[in-house]
Structures are given as structure tokens and as C-alpha cells.
């Protein structure tokens, strides 16, 4: 009797285990932290094929750079397997010790990227997309075209500009451009740089913190000029068709969007596979053609029409100004205070 019971229990247990094993594989979750823009396209292009590859369920954490990085910091680097951030915030994450080095042997597609995208922040995450920060303006409202960063200081633009807030990706670039206008390095001589920022103040109606806020300001007619990232241009022109991207003689500024693996990732191997997948020529091409992100895989070949919205190709990419975020982050606290004194008093 006793033997029978044991064999029954063993048989039932084996059957249960066999039945449960596929479920266990699918129960594995892989968490991606990103902005949440273009959700449907990303679901179709990245998530569904990757779920088939990994036999896992992909779940998301969405929000802007600072919100998501802040949440990751509060959790001590746990709860997320890969995190998308702009380079200013990924540098901050590196300095906070929240990311682990990438094992490049597990991500061979990194070798196919443009040089500046392969290791923009040392041993940490590569860039998966590239963008520009420049000036956008309403050509119907601004009398003479904007052709230089110095035009932001023009008298005819009084009260009609919105700048990105100092705590956003593009905000500190205002200070760097102000330093350039004053003929100084903003890190070395912040007094001179902020004196120029103060001169800019009468032209600034308000600062914005998200791309949507900036688009609203244009569409309600509050502003006619703004400093912006190129990813917002499509939506901006859909709202206000007369808005154009200024062709700046002193060059736009590069922004790299990176993917990092947090220190607390529970699926490190899978995270490397995800990076390799996202950086593949095929996925990068599809993302560009579908209007989601600019490619950084040098093998991606786009038609002129497909490339039009993007920071694309050797010539354009090499013309961009680069930012070193290490000294920028080191000075940022002081810059935030100085910025607040000018714009918040």
C-alpha cells in the first residue's frame, strides 16, 4: 500500500513538473525601462520578435529619463534588465554606480556601429540611436531666419523663446552655448557664461521640461522659437507646419541614446542578447524606416526620403558638436542654482 502511494505521488509529481516546465520558461520576465514613445511600433518591431527568441515575457517601465533613473536609484539598481536613457542621464547612472560594464563579446553587433556609438561612455552601454539638439522656429512668425546659436539673443525675439529646463538633457547645453558666445569655457568661467544666460532671460517666456510642453507652447502661439531635440520635430511640424529646423552655421549638438544593463539585472545574459538584437542591421533599418529612431548601425542604408528626418550618415554625424558629460554632471548642481536664480526669481 505504502509503495503504491509513493509511486502514485512520483507519477503525479513528474506529470506536474512536465506540465509546468513550459509555463516556468514563459514565467521568466524581462523588464525594459524606456520612454514609452512609439509603443505600438516598438511592440511589433522589437518586443514580439524578442519574446519569441527569449521565451520570456517582456514587461515595461516607462517615464522620462529622470523619473526612471530616480526610481532605479531608489531600488538600488534592481527591478530593470535594460534601461534606455539619453547620454546625459546614462552618464549620471554610471556615476551613481547603477550600471554594469557590457561584455562586448556577447554583443558582436557593437562592432557594426559608427565609432561614436560603440562606447560613448567607456565600458558601459552603447548608443542605439543618435539625435541632434538645435533650434526650431516658426518661419511665419520670425522675420529673419535663425542661422546661429547667437541668434537666440536677438532683440526681436523678446519674450518668444522657450528653453529646455536646466535639468533636462538639452538644458545644460544652453549654458555651454552661452559660454561659447562669451568666448569662455563654461566649466572654467561660469560667471561669464551665466552673465550671457542672464542676457538671454528677457527673450525667454518660460522653460519646458518635456517635448510635449514645448509643442504645446508652439501650438498655442506662446512661443515662436525653441531649442529642441530633433526627435520632436515630426510631432511639432504636425501641430504647427510652419515650424522649421534651423540650419546652424555653428553646428547642432549630438545626443546619443544609450542602453545600459543595471547592476541589479536578474537576466544579464538575456540583456546582452537584447542589446545585440536591437543593434542588428535589420532592426536598426526597420526602426528608421518606420520613423521610430535614427540608426547608428553603419550598415543601414536609407533612401534620401527615409533618411530625411534623421541624424544620418557620416557627413552629418561628423559635423555635430559633442558634449563631455563628466565635467557637465560635476558642475550641474551649481549650474542649477545659478539657472534658478536667473529664471526663477
Amino acid at each position, binding site marked *: 500500500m505504502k509503495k503504491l502511494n509513493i509511486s502514485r505521488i512520483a507519477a503525479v509529481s513528474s506529470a506536474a513538473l512536465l506540465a509546468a516546465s513550459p509555463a516556468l520558461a514563459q514565467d521568466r520576465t524581462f523588464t525594459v525601462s524606456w520612454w514609452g514613445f512609439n509603443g505600438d511600433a516598438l511592440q511589433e518591431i522589437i518586443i514580439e520578435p524578442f519574446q519569441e527568441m527569449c521565451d520570456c515575457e517582456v514587461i515595461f517601465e516607462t517615464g522620462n529619463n529622470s523619473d526612471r533613473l*530616480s526610481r532605479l536609484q531608489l531600488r538600488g539598481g534592481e527591478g530593470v534588465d535594460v534601461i534606455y536613457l539619453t547620454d546625459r542621464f546614462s552618464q549620471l547612472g554610471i556615476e551613481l554606480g547603477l550600471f554594469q560594464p557590457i561584455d562586448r563579446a556577447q554583443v558582436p553587433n557593437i562592432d557594426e556601429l559608427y565609432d561614436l556609438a560603440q562606447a560613448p561612455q567607456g565600458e558601459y552601454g552603447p548608443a542605439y540611436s543618435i539625435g541632434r539638439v538645435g533650434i526650431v522656429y516658426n518661419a511665419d512668425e520670425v522675420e529673419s531666419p535663425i542661422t546661429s546659436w547667437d541668434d537666440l539673443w536677438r532683440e526681436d525675439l523678446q519674450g518668444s523663446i522657450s528653453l529646455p529646463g536646466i*535639468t*533636462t538633457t538639452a538644458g545644460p547645453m544652453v549654458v555651454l552655448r552661452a559660454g561659447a558666445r562669451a568666448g569662455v569655457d563654461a566649466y572654467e568661467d561660469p560667471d561669464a557664461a551665466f552673465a550671457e544666460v542672464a542676457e538671454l532671460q528677457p527673450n525667454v517666456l*518660460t*522653460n519646458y521640461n518635456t517635448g510635449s510642453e514645448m509643442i504645446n507652447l508652439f501650438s*498655442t502661439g506662446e512661443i515662436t522659437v525653441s531649442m529642441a531635440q530633433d526627435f520632436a520635430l515630426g510631432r511639432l511640424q504636425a501641430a504647427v507646419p510652419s515650424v522649421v529646423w534651423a540650419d546652424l552655421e555653428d553646428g547642432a549638438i549630438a545626443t546619443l541614446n544609450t542602453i545600459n544593463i543595471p547592476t541589479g539585472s536578474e537576466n544579464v545574459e538575456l540583456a546582452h542578447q537584447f542589446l545585440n538584437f536591437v543593434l542588428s542591421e535589420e532592426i536598426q533599418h526597420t526602426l528608421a524606416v518606420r520613423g521610430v529612431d535614427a540608426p547608428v548601425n553603419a550598415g543601414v542604408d536609407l533612401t534620401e526620403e527615409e533618411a530625411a528626418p534623421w541624424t544620418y550618415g557620416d557627413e552629418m554625424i561628423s559635423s555635430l558638436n559633442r558634449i563631455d558629460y563628466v565635467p557637465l554632471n560635476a558642475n550641474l548642481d551649481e549650474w542649477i542654482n545659478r539657472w*534658478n*536664480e536667473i529664471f526663477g*526669481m
Partner: protein
Amino acid sequence: MKTLAGWILSSPATLAVSLFLIIPVAATISVTFTAPGGTFAPYVDFFSSGFQRTVLWRTFEIAAITTVISLILGLLTAYVVSRSAPWMKSVLIVLAVFPLLTGVVVRSFAWLIILGRNGVLNNSLEWLGVIERPLSLLYTQTSVVLALIYIFIPLMILVLIGVLENIPDDLLQASASLGASPTRTFVQVVLPLATPGLIVGAVLVFTASFTSYATPHLLGGTRQMTMGTFLHQRAMTSFDWTSASTVAAIMVVVIVTTVLVMTRLAKRLNPMAS
């Protein structure tokens, strides 16, 4: 025995209040006393900055103006509603409560549409020939106060209707029969009896205005930074949690002090208010 039963019965509520209110607030504030640089270093840093003092004063000013205007408008409205015929009273209460059916962001956004450069107000003034070019009305203290009044005045009205309805008509008739004018009756009879409601309404509106985030963010922008928007900047974009906790602690102190002062004031105006 009775005391023991009281303690046992109240223990779930005490536990809930401790878990969800006292412990989180205490944990937030305790960070500020263990920061490097000394026990009160974050507070010294806060008050040594002219900008931060301006933000604190501006927030207090906005909350105080909002509260005073809401008190005046709310009292008059509630008085009219409380003295209306029952069917009219129902209609007026629904109208007063109606704005509460939408979110704060939507109600704030409505003011962006009204006060914007191409907004309803500017367009109307231009059409009437009062102005030649649109006025810049957004991102000012006035725009923030206007929106906060609109958002929080239903709270004031609701609280005051309840209080004013409980004032017996006999008292008002007695006052009139003794020769008091309607104004004198309102000032000397209605107002003192409404003091408890006024205090509750004022505390609600002041607290909500002082701690509001969405409305100052949307209508004040960076030019009218308040404690709520400043706290968000320190916590979510600068990752400076000590500084954010300091801002939060100062907000708690200001609110608690204001409530105590108002309660004391109420006791002096009307001993029944206690």
C-alpha cells in the same frame, strides 16, 4: 476596563495612521538631520539661498491670496445657496461641485486656453478693441492664483454650505427684528457662527494651494517656481533627496504652523470654534 477597550478598539486606526502617515513623514524628515555637514546643515543651506527664500515666500503668498479670495467668494456663494429654495439649492450645489468631476490637470489646462496668447480672453479683448496686441498673461503669479481659486473654491463652498445651513432662520429674524440691517446681521450674526466652517475651508484651501504641483507647473512654469515644483526638481531631476526632504519638511512645518495659528484665531473669534 473601559480605557483598555478604547485602546483596543482604536488600535487598528492608530496603526493605519502610524503606518501610512506618521512613519513616511518621519522617515522623510529624518534624512535631513543625518546629512553630512551637521544636523541642521540642509536647513541652513536652504535659507541661505535668496532664490529658495523667494520660492518659499512666493508659495506662501500664492496660497494666502488664494485662500483669502476663496473665503470671500465662497462665503458669499455659500450664503446665497444656503438661503435658496430647495430645488434651486440642489441645482446650485451641482453647479458648484461640477468642476470637481474633472482632474486638476484638465482644469489647469483650461486656464492655459483662457489666458493664452491666442486664448479666449486675449481674443475677446482684441475683438472689443481694448488691446491691440495679445497680452502675456501666462507664467505669472496672477495666472497661478486664478487657476488655484477656480480649482479649490468648490471645497470652500461645500464646507460653508453645511455650516450656513445650520444657522437657524430664527436668529436672522431676531436680528432683523431688533433693527439690524442685513449687512450687520451678516457681519455680527452669520459670520461668527460660520467661523468653524471658515477655518476648515481656509485650512483645506491653504494646504491644497501650498502643496499644489500641477497648476503652478502648468501656469507658472519656471518663472513662478513654488515649493511643489521646486521639490520635484530637487528629487526627480537633480536626484538630491536630502534637499527634496528639506523642502518637504519646511512645507510640513509651514502648514502645521498655519493650521495652529488659524485654529487659535478661530477660538478668539468664536469660542465655539474649538
